């Protein structure tokens, strides 16, 4: 324990704690920009400067550890002046776009300008100009709005271990960008959007599909269908100040209907379908000595990573399309036929927690003939904007039920939205398939939680399965290296590119608090626990779908409609 004084308040802090954290522990807020929780400080922005008695200059509190008897002033006139100057310099080199900016009212630079009372332009001068990078299907990079805090660089390099973007040049010309300033679409980027979640401004943002979707809704010839991913229902309420982890499924369905969607279905239905296909594929691989371990394929960020970096392991990736693509495919085949709608008129919009899904829905092979399985993807954030635009008061909406038959789902599908969930759901069904009996204990605690790599072994009627759950793409490399070396002990591996899984996807409400992720996860496990049916193979609508249309899991027809193939993107990127 170390005793110090901050703003005349006696503080007991732990050895090694930073001034920033010590201040926080007694309710003193110090502004930060470059600081990222759980990563080593860089001291780049200096906005967290404080006065430490006996030290000549100001001290960056995010990087400086406390010591015994330290006397700190976090809010002296000198500190305030310094911070204000920093903010002024940032603002003067920033486009004056607030009114038309997608981050208006959710921008850390705006907040600081307000907090430090900027009322005049003291440093007007040359400002940087940069082209906007719109090359990727998922994201936009607008370096003119970048304040060079480096948070995106660090998340991409240190957490995701991709390193698609970095600081280049120096001084006035420094800019965070891709190598040779080329488009994100031909960089190492996997479009996970984790950088968007940490960006304090709108320098990084999703590519919006609102225009296309609203056009489709206004087109009388289109039969518009929305589907909602498991992870969206547990986070969207945050944008309306509801408690963390509030389940807003019922309001979402009502809201989407009010936007004009003819039908609102649940991606969870297709998650159950995915499990039927994936569990069968796994059992087939294990029983017939085919390529193992098998990776899950629900996460398009992970798939893109494998295609770009390790094309030699693509055989290990399950051939199943991701759930929302399966839902789209079934809508444009089975459902269209059943309802007597021309599939060309169906317009499927996926509400997703994810930025990569936009890229995924553009993949040419994810289509029935020439019709894309999914026509457009909206992130959680975009949907909120849509509701606002349409004058829908989300918080006051009554609840309603999904349409059927593609709206029914089980608890197994609900947990798809969190790291470990796909694995758990698959095991429940694999157990049943192999033994003909239901598991008595449905919860697999060992694959839950926020660990980067979670492992377990399960023995099902004499068959021992070693499983692993990779949480965050930054943790996948060692596992792949093992496979390449022929030393992998696993049979089945789940990978989600975003730390925490889709619940913390790049399209989710923007927050800067890692502890939020756990609360969101809990909400999904809660939905699962409260479900009547908690195993995918007990989804009645899925059973009917097989009986009426697909036949068996992994049948020829199922393969045609629900499975896909992958490409060596390393070659594509290098040429």
């Amino acid at each position, binding site marked *: 324990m170390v005793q110090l004084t901050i703003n005349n308040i006696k503080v007991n802090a732990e050895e090694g704690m930073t001034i920033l954290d010590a201040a926080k522990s007694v309710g003193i807020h110090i502004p930060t920009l470059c600081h990222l929780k759980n990563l080593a400080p860089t001291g780049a922005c200096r906005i967290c400067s404080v006065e430490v008695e006996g030290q000549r200059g100001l001290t960056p509190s995010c990087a400086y550890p406390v010591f015994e008897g330290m006397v700190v002033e976090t809010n002296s006139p000198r500190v305030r002046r310094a911070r204000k100057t920093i903010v002024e310099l940032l603002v003067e080199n920033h486009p004056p776009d607030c009114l038309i900016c997608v981050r208006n009212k959710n921008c850390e630079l705006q907040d600081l300008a307000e907090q430090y009372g900027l009322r005049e332009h003291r440093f007007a001068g040359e400002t940087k100009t940069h082209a906007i990078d719109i090359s990727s299907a998922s994201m936009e990079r607008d370096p003119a709005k970048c304040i060079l805090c480096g948070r995106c660089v660090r998340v991409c390099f240190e957490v995701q271990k991709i390193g698609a973007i970095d600081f280049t040049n*120096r001084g006035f010309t420094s800019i965070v960008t891709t*190598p040779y300033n080329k488009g994100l679409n031909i960089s190492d980027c996997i479009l996970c959007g984790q950088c968007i979640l940490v960006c304090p401004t709108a320098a990084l943002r999703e590519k919006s599909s609102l225009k296309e979707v609203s056009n489709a809704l206004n087109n009388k010839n289109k039969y518009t269908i929305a589907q909602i991913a498991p992870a969206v229902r547990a986070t969207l309420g945050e944008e309306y100040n509801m408690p963390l982890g509030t389940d807003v499924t019922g309001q979402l369905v009502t809201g989407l209907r009010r936007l004009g969607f003819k039908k609102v279905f649940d991606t969870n239905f297709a998650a159950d379908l995915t499990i039927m296909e994936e569990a069968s594929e796994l059992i087939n691989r294990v029983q017939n000595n085919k390529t193992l371990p098998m990776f899950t394929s629900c996460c398009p960020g992970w798939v893109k990573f494998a295609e770009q970096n390790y094309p030699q392991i693509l055989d290990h990736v399950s051939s199943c399309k991701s759930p929302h693509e399966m839902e789209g495919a079934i809508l444009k085949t089975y459902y269209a036929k059943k309802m007597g709608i021309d599939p060309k008129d169906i317009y499927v919009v996926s509400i997703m927690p994810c930025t990569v899904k936009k890229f995924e829905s553009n993949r040419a092979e994810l289509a029935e003939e020439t019709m894309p399985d999914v026509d457009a993807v909206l992130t959680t954030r975009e949907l909120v904007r849509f509701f606002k635009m349409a004058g829908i008061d989300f918080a006051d909406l009554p609840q309603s039920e999904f349409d059927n038959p593609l709206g029914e789902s089980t608890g197994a599908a609900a947990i798809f939205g969190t790291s470990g969930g796909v694995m758990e759901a698959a095991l429940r069904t694999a157990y049943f398939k192999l033994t003909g009996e239901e598991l008595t204990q449905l919860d697999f605690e060992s694959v839950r939680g926020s660990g980067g790599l979670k492992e377990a072994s399960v023995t099902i009627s004499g068959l021992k399965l070693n499983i692993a759950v990779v949480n965050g793409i930054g943790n996948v490399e060692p596992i792949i290296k093992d496979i390449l070396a022929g030393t992998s002990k696993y049979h089945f591996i789940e990978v989600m590119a975003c730390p925490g899984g889709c619940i913390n996807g790049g399209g989710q409400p923007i927050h800067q608090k890692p502890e939020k992720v756990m609360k969101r996860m809990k909400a999904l496990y809660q939905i699962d626990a409260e479900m009547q049916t908690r195993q995918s193979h007990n989804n009645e609508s899925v059973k009917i779908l097989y009986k009426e249309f697909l036949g068996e899991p992994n049948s020829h027809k199922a393969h045609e409609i629900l499975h896909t193939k992958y490409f060596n993107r390393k070659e594509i990127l290098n040429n």
Partner: protein
Amino acid sequence: MHKDVFKNYQKNDKSALIPLLQDVQSLYNYLPEEALKDIAEFLGIPLSRVFGVATFYNQFRLTPIGKNVIRVCRGTACHVKNSSNLLFALETALGIKAGETTRDKNFTLETVACIGACSIAPVITVNDEFYGRLSVKDIPKIIKTYTTAQQKAAVEIKAEESAA
């Protein structure tokens, strides 16, 4: 051929980045894109970081260098003596901007913060030669000194074009 240089380094040794960049540059006089990619792969560093380091330090160049390097001093003393006019005259005469190389690869034009010859400001250097107390009128003569007959014709055409 830059891969031969790699032999002197440990694979995945991230601390070798700057020396390796230096070695490769002395091989080609600049850092080709292919070489940066190979360095990134060899050291296990993302290309973005290799590119970031290569663009941070002035000593590294990413475009091929001309046979003759002209450096225009833009330090304070030279600035006061209107070195910006010299730069503009050179850019016009050579048809390139500072930081670029002529198409025939005969000249590379650069600016430097201070050459350290303030007493003869404004000053430029061509390769290791200093030219001080210059005025715009001196520029054509200096360029001529470093231009072969054949190249001269090309440069003159350019100059005419930009005059027109």
